[in-house]
């Protein structure tokens, strides 16, 4: 437990000194706020583009608050996930690659504490960034577009957060398995994408897979449904996160450094 605390403090310090604690939450906030603003000003933007025949008016159904929120989450699913993967990808591989791990692992340290601290700091960064961005998106949506159902928005946010945690876990697992940063990013983003797509293709068989989490939050936001699969997907996703953690711990213990 004490070693977990030491490792965790070190991870936090590293994320602070490499400015991750600043730029990742700020980028998430920007992403969240952008969507309602762009939606709100879309008619004006189109108008000022100006090459429309005179007299033609665009009649655009103004989107509801829930729709804008769903779009925001869509942004997080692409750009947001990419940012997370890029900021987390070297968390385990970097220490193995550079050789610091040789000194750390020759000390009587617990490998579970080591990986657990990586996981906890990953959760912390994701949670803070996402909550900040989501809250910003919510506030701007209410200010500029219209009201959003509180319960639906919270559940959607919760599911989405779990999905991001899962994405982070995939990244850390890849980081424990592979060395090149590009490979880690490619594998973890590819896995996340495949899972989402597979859930779209075979909704019946993969209703409980973590890949269906993004669909669940959209359904929850827009229609207030799809919650029957939710519990299953929730549990399976948590188990998957645990499995990633266990596999990464085993791998770290097996390959302590590159020699």
């Amino acid at each position, binding site marked *: 437990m004490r070693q977990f605390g030491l490792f965790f403090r070190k991870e936090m310090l590293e994320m602070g000194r490499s400015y991750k604690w600043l730029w990742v939450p700020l980028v998430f906030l920007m992403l969240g706020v952008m969507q309602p*603003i762009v939606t709100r000003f879309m008619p004006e933007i189109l108008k000022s583009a100006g090459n429309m025949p005179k007299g033609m008016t665009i009649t655009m159904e103004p989107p509801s608050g829930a729709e804008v929120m769903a779009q925001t989450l869509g942004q997080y699913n692409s750009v947001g996930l990419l940012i997370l993967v890029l900021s987390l990808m070297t968390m385990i591989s970097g220490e193995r690659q550079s050789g610091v791990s040789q000194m750390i692992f020759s000390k009587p340290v617990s490998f579970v504490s080591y990986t657990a601290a990586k996981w906890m700091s990953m959760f912390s960064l994701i949670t803070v960034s996402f909550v900040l961005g989501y809250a910003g998106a919510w506030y701007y949506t209410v200010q500029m577009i219209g009201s959003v159902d509180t319960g639906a928005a919270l559940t959607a946010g919760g599911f989405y957060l779990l999905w991001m945690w899962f994405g982070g876990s995939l990244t850390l697992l890849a980081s424990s398995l592979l060395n090149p940063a590009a490979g880690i990013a490619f594998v973890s983003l590819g896995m996340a994408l495949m899972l989402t797509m597979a859930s779209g293709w075979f909704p019946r068989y993969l209703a409980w897979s973590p890949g269906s989490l993004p669909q669940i939050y959209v359904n929850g936001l827009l229609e207030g449904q799809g919650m029957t699969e939710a519990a299953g997907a929730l549990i399976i996703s948590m188990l998957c996160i645990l499995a990633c953690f266990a596999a990464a711990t085993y791998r770290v213990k097996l390959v302590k450094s590159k020699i």
Partner: protein
Amino acid sequence: MNTDIPWNLLAPLIFIQLILSVVGLISLYKAESTRGPKWLWVIIILCGSLLGSVAYFVVGRKDVS
């Protein structure tokens, strides 16, 4: 229809953008070495807005770990 721009809502956005660029530049100034020449990163951070700063933090910084 002339919508007056809600500056009170847009201002924070500009502010965040500013922080990111400034912190990016400070970290660039303090860094001993970067991937690629420093002057290039200055241009990227200043002109690339959000993406420029993010690109610097992800790719440009060497001493992250």
